[in-house]
């Protein structure tokens, strides 16, 4: 897959949809192209967060360690971004991400990612929107879980 194809895929990621393609090309160029075969780990829960990943092709599972063993909490479709929370919060990874099929991804380093956020407010706003959206989902889930008890 060439740089220009990657730019096309990045444009399909909601987070980057507002950014002009020249900048996306720069982002793609300065990121590492990484590939994983099924079962390989992108990062582990508890590791230090040093990069975010954009899944270009393939699927990955999000797994969380709990007292009753590892639980799969979600599945990442292509064109989704993962791992950005640990970068933003300077915290360690909150979950493990494992490739469910052969995965091609772009690995965006932490310092590059933060720099992008500074330079492109539209991206930052988009990011806040996505996070707020997730929070409201989580809250809804929590209410469901409480009321089901």
């Amino acid at each position, binding site marked *: *897959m*060439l740089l220009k194809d990657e730019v096309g895929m990045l444009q399909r990621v909601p987070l980057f949809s507002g950014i002009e393609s*020249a900048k996306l090309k720069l982002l793609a*160029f300065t990121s*590492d*192209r990484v*590939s994983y075969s099924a079962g390989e780990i992108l990062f582990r829960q508890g590791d230090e967060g040093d990069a975010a990943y954009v899944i270009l092709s393939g699927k990955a599972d999000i797994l969380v360690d709990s007292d009753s063993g590892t639980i799969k909490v979600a599945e990442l479709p292509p064109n989704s971004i993962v791992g950005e929370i640990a970068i933003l919060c300077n915290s360690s990874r909150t979950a493990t991400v494992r490739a469910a099929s052969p995965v091609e991804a772009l690995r965006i380093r932490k310092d590059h990612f933060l*720099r992008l956020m500074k330079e492109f407010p539209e991206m930052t706003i988009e990011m806040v929107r996505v996070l707020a959206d997730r929070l409201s989902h989580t809250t809804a889930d929590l209410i469901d879980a409480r009321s089901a008890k």
Partner: protein
Amino acid sequence: MEPSLARYIWTHTKKQQLWILVIVLLSMIPYFMSFDLPKLIVNGPIQGRGFEQPGATQPFMRLHYNLPFIGEIQFFPGFQLDRTTTLLALSLVFLLLVIINGLFKFYINTYKGRLGERMLRRIRFDLVDRVLRFPPRYFKRVKSAEVATMVKDEVEPLGGFIGDAFLQPVLLGGQAVTAMLFIVVQNFWLGMIAAVIVLIQIVLIPRMRRRLIVLGRKRQLTARALSGRVGEIVDGIGAVHVHDTSNYERADIAARLGLIFKIRFDLYQWKFMVKFLNNFLAQITPFLFYMVGGYLVIQGRLDVGQLVAVIGAYKDLPGPMKELIDWDQDRQDVQVKYQQVVEQFTVEGLIAPRIGALTIDDPGPMTNPLSAIGLSMADDGGAMLLDRISLQVKPGETVALVSTSTGGAEALAEAFARLNWPESGKVASGADDLLELPEAVTGRRMSYASSDVFLFQASLRDNLLYGLKHAPLTSVTYDGAAADQHRWNIHEARRSGNPDLDIHSDWIDYASVGATGPHDLFEAVRQVLDAVLLSRDILDLGLRSSADLTRHTELAGRIVELRAALRTRLEHEGLSGLVVPFKPGAYNKEATIGQNLLFGAAAGPELADRALAANPYFASVLRQAGLDRTLYEMGLEIAEQAIELFADLPPDHQFFQQLAFMSAEEIPAYQTLLQRLKNRPYETVSENDRAMIVTLSFAYIEPRHRFGLLGDELMNKIVAARNRFYEGLPPELQNAVERYDPAKYIAAATVMDNVLFGRLGSNHPDAPDRIRSIVYDILDELGLYAELLDVGLDFNVGAGGRRLTAGQRQKLDVARALLKRPDFLILNRPLSALDQRVQEKVLRNVLEEARRDGRSPAIVWVVTNPAMAMMFDRVVVFDSGRLVEDGTHETLLAGSGMFKELLS
């Protein structure tokens, strides 16, 4: 030190000075003869006196000189020669005298040059020797660069002067007096004229030069201060940048330079003023000679030969006079310099020479307890750090010193290490004052490490073994020229009062490490490095550096085995994709195009980096392979893409780290180049511009950069060009590149590259870490771990060890202290740069390592955290310079004192 320079010189060189004086006096005889000869030539054969009759002859070599005060002496009756042959003979004698005088001068100059250089060597050595014996407090007040300038520059003129110290006045005075006497003998009045002028010179010039000396002294002081400041800037460069004070420093340096300039220019002006006057006086005398002497000749009271001889003699008068005055100025100047240096180096409480005396034999263990008796320590400002402490550390005891921030435990550790001297009271070993023990005992049987580490700019190995180099233990045998050189070294060292210890001897005290020689030293080193957790760091350094194959032969010899082991291991673990190996007949997709073309490591500048594309042979290979145009077009494409991507970014943007093709500074140049070359046919582009563009393509890696520029056909062409390159490699490039050969070690590449013999796949972000741990495993399995550690020990730590991290430096310092296997190990917050967890781990390891093989040294450890005290036999607590608690960990924990308070 001897305050008077003249006496210092006389004490050390009187024999030589006397000898050279004798030679100088001897040289006066031919010197005087050469004055008389012109008169004989002019009056005799030239003017024809004594040859009035045709065929008349005169005796030749009837040596009858009319020496002043001695009268006429006849040495030899002579040969009878006619007018022409007499002229010839006398002229030849003149030539002979010129040669003899020249030879005398040559001998004298060489002799005194050597004399001066020997004395310079002696003075410099004396000064450094004193630095080695200065008391500790002195070093808190001096700048190292100033001391270095004094030793290096300020005593330098002394060397030039010393040869002349006694000789010059005698030689020049002798010459001047001889010339003067000669003139007086020829004609009294001409002699008087010369005498008056000389008198004026002698009186006036030195007076004018006094100012020069004052200025010279100022120049010396300001220059010394300048070098001190420059040294400070270099040492404190971090502080300068952190506080944005670089312009303050610029202003300070500019002000100093301005002052130096002013002084130097004053000096310059005044010097040439004096010179002008001096020359004028010297030139005015011949004017008087021609006038008065000519008049006397006309009157017939002086013959022409005499006048010529007088003028000839006078030519030799101003020279010596001027030099004599110069000498006097030098003398004053050098005396001032010497005094200033001596003042700086005269310090109260110098360490006695016997403390640091060379001791070859093992001084034996320190079996007495180490005690502080009523010990008080103060800092440089006089504030009390320790107040009358009494404490005893028994052999074999481990003691943790716990201290509040103003407790004073560090001062106690420094007193134990003799780094600071007691204000009152003392530190004793048994009944002896510790300060009275020779360093041969304290430096070998005690060791000390602190948070403030000093490393020398040398390899890790040298720094680690530094603590073992007490005395030359082997005598080296030299053969042939080296033996002569060695004899000369010893002879000269003795003549200059330097020690003749052989620096090439093996100074490492193997026995103290528990080894018998270089071959089993390594085991001890490895254990110590493991204990301080430094081995991993050194292995990493080893992997990243290129091994010296003269030293590490095994690594090269077993490289094939190593590479095969790595492949097998990777296959076994299903990680083959991690490394793409180099294969002679195949394109390596993870390597750059340049690497694929060259397929070797550049071993010289000819084919390295940017020079590759510009190399004419390489360019011709590309042309023949039909690649030149393709790569040029690829380069243009890359330039366009790179500029499109990066042109808008500020040059310090971190994204530039990702741009392998060009640096941020080069972007504007490539922008203009691109505009110029766009739509230009390839044929019309100059060689230089082509190379600039083609070089971009050399950095291209398809899977990483993903511009889609590299197809199968091109890859095949590149592999073909690679073979063509090596087939026709001209002899002058044979040594510029080491071809990748699966069976050969590449000396120019790092150990890691040699083992990998390939490139890491770019799409596995954790590949480097995984590969590194696999490589370590393999090296260990093949028994090459020690060899790699040894490669790592070659790493040069940089000035002050700055190429290592603070933590690595501290670990190295502790390792150095441990390696000695001391009886008393003093550790003064030695690991403060490490985090608590690592500190505790190292502490545990160090205690264990120090006691390995049944050894039981006393360990005094100033801990950074009271919790660390748990691992010691005894805990001593300090607060505000006083010892407040002393006991075992349990008792102090059970009490309710300061220790308990500190722990919570």
